[in-house]
């Protein structure tokens, strides 16, 4: 199992993501610098971590989405390699148009950090197969720009196609239809604002995030 974490200038959850991947696979991921053009050969899982790539300047995720490595990430995604984007990683994936929609400033305008209940909407994807449909799980959020937006037709379509992976059980940031996590149409790219890598250990106060990694990495093992 070869995993990779993409590191942008300003990423700050790259280590946390690496810890989670190593905990589940028993093997440290490759840390891939944004300026690299190629992923390590045989990479079979890619994570885009949280943080403030390029300081969130211009728009969060906008500059990172134009990094050289993103072409390889898009190619890999096209080949069906699983790609997980968390928080800023989700913002990068929407900016790179690997996922629909956009993430705007939270409706309350403030940064929000708290553990929130999520409803699992799709338990069939490779990332969510360890959850039961409709199950409520607890995962921390920490973001300023997590207010998911897409036009009504897009929202109808992704809901109809079962591409909403998670929904906030209570409104957190004003997201359209309380969407917290979105899959691409092939189901191998997941973007989510909550941080599963912050819920993998009893010391975190919960391990609901661990199950996501176990499912996503276990499928491939």
């Amino acid at each position, binding site marked *: 199992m070869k995993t990779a974490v993409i590191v942008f*200038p*300003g990423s*700050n*959850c790259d*280590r*946390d993501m690496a*810890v*989670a991947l190593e905990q589940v696979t028993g093997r440290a991921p490759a840390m891939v610098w944004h300026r690299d053009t190629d992923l390590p050969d045989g990479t079979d899982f890619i994570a885009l971590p*949280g*943080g*403030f790539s*390029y*300081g*969130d*300047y211009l728009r969060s995720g906008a500059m990172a989405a134009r990094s050289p490595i993103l072409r390889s990430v898009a190619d890999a995604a096209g080949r069906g390699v699983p790609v997980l984007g968390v928080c800023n990683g989700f913002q990068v994936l929407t900016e790179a148009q690997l996922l629909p929609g956009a993430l705007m400033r939270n409706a*309350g*305008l*403030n*940064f*929000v*950090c*708290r553990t929130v209940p999520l409803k699992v909407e799709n338990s069939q994807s490779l990332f969510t197969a360890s959850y039961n449909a409709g199950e409520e799980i607890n995962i*921390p959020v*920490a973001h*300023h720009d997590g207010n998911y937006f897409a036009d009504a037709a897009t929202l109808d379509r992704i809901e109809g196609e079962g591409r909403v992976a998670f929904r906030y059980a209570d409104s957190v940031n004003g997201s359209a239809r309380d969407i917290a996590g979105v899959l691409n149409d092939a189901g191998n790219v997941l973007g989510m604002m909550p*941080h599963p*890598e*912050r819920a*993998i*250990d009893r*010391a*975190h106060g919960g391990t609901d995030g661990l199950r996501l990694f176990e499912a996503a990495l276990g499928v491939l093992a």
Partner: protein
Amino acid sequence: MTQPAPAITPEIVAEHGLSPEEYDRVLAAIGREPNLVELGIFSVMWSEHCSYKSSRIHLKKLPTEAPWVICGPGENAGVIDIGEGAGGKKLAAIFKMESHNHPSYIEPYQGAATGVGGILRDVFTMGARPVANLNALRFGRPDHPKMKHLISGVVHGIGGYGNCVGVPTVGGEVNFHKAYDGNILVNAMTVGVAEQDKIFYSAASGVGNPIVYVGSKTGRDGIHGATMASADFGEDAEEKRPTVQVGDPFTEKLLIEACLELMASDAIVAIQDMGAAGLTSSSVEMASKGGVGLHLKMDDVPQRETGMTAYEMMLSESQERMLMVLKPGKEEFAKAIFHKWELDFAVIGTVTDTGRMVLEHHGEIVCDIPLAPLADDAPLYDRPHVPTPKQPELTNVPETTDVAADLKTLMGTPDIASRRWIWEQYDSQVGADTLQTGGDAALVRIHGTNRALAMSTDCTPRYCYADPVEGGKQAVAETWRNISAVGATPLAITNCLNFANPQRPEIMGQIVGCLDGMAQACRALDYPIVSGNVSLYNESKATGGGSAILPTPAIGGVGVIEDLNKAVGIGFRRTGDIVLAVGERAGHLGQSVWLREIHGREEGPPPQVNLRCEKRTGDFIRTAINAGWITACHDVSDGGMAVTLAEMALKSNIGVLVSEEQPFGVAESFFGEDQGLYLVTVCDTCLADFLDAAGRADVPVDPVGRTIKDRIVFELEGSDHQVTLAELREAHEGFFPNLMGADAALA
């Protein structure tokens, strides 16, 4: 473009904050009239902020040593041994707290943000990866017309910077008092972890070694910030906005990663961040500590603007910059790292053996002064001080008519209300090692181990005002107590000493008194001070108050718990548990929040801290937690036992029935702010062992009540007073959202 050299007039000297006597010292030190660049350098190095000229003589009295102290005050931050990390590597905690009061009042967002940035640099410049940020904030009256803007700006500034650099903000404290109406306090603390054999110091050495500038470019921002922070605010405080620096946490994050990457090699001889007084203080301190000279080429300093003078470059407080001395031949290796992180890197000079600071600009020598006098001949004042008169004992204290109603009121008052609105705006979890925020002390796992750092910031300014010695003791003891209350061993503290104008003998008396009390507590608790910062002249005429702040020696304590699974929180665990008070009870109402909030009286002496009882009780609590006997623990502080019980109840939504006879009057028993007192629940099967050990340790244990469902009931003679947890929660959670409202984010 060279600036015509103006003659140094008495007005120019005064504008630089130097007294005529101090200017005479400058003349004596260099044997001639300084030019403007030289005067500027003397003025910042001899400012209160950099020279500690009013406090140095008293700071020496503080205990700074213990077997686990690796480096005490004098470096960028203090360093203590925290035992082994992953792979058996010996680790150190590196930490410090610093003020950014004046800038935060003028421009709260940038003031607070750059306060966080500055303290982070103090810690990573020594080789540590920052693992936790904490803060200590004091605001004026919540209804003061400027206060919402200040609160909002400061909170957003702290979050904006800390969240972006990816260091969790895990703890802090906030007080409100009218004495801060015109002069808020923003104290920021960073704790970092380094390997003991990878700690970096600031003493420059090696004649001919390159001096390297890294980070952001130098601009015209923040010129003379240190001098501003060394004077009272006049009515023109707002006009000083251009002296506030602007922070860029993104660059800071890159700088952290680049510095730590370079520090993994052996290329660095010495390193120092550019904080207050920027390039001047960093270069002077590095040279002075190493006993060497410096030759700097100002043309090579990376500049944000064209046409900057040497004077501007030396006094700029542009953020996110560091100065290093490298081993010869390591320049290209280091440069590659900084360029990878897209940061400026420039060799700007060399270490010399002249003992002089020589600056060259446009082919001319624009400064040539001996370095020794800048440090050694800095003014040192033993300013006159008068002790603060003792407060008369309280008289005519009314009894409470309804404990539960008073409790509900207190839970919604500014000093006690829930700080959720604040801390939810801070990323407290990044790093994925945060185990607890809130509670008595924050807990952050030492990465890759089963051990954790425990940290707390504390000070009770109203106690310090009423009795500086007792207040100084209490501030130190409270951090020690909070760290003990989670089960950790307190190791050392940093401090941030905020006072008003030291040229007034009564203010100087507060400083001397607080330091005396702090020193007593540090000695008694074996809890040395390893770093700190002094912020004076915290008074303001800007709001028509003419008021001095309350003396506020904020303390940041750090400890370690050996097994993080043994740590306990404040929340009750289940109904039916017996609640016990552990420690000496006194029923002390003087200077209590209850007396102030319910009766409008700020009176009486503050509670006494009996340091021998404090040590005995805290040591027992820690032992009992690590033995696994205690299931919940919370120390008594603001608002007394009633508020402590309410906080324990709200944490886990389990109530308490207080049925036991109390040793004092009702108000005294429940609202007295007794020191060295803890409330605990103990597991059933451990109770006998617990009581036995308490008896042997000579620690009093008093039953208080037992846990029940969903309400707090005070069963008193004649009547029951009760309040539901839902009502308490509403009062507790309401204050900040009501104050800040929806428009709070717009500041």
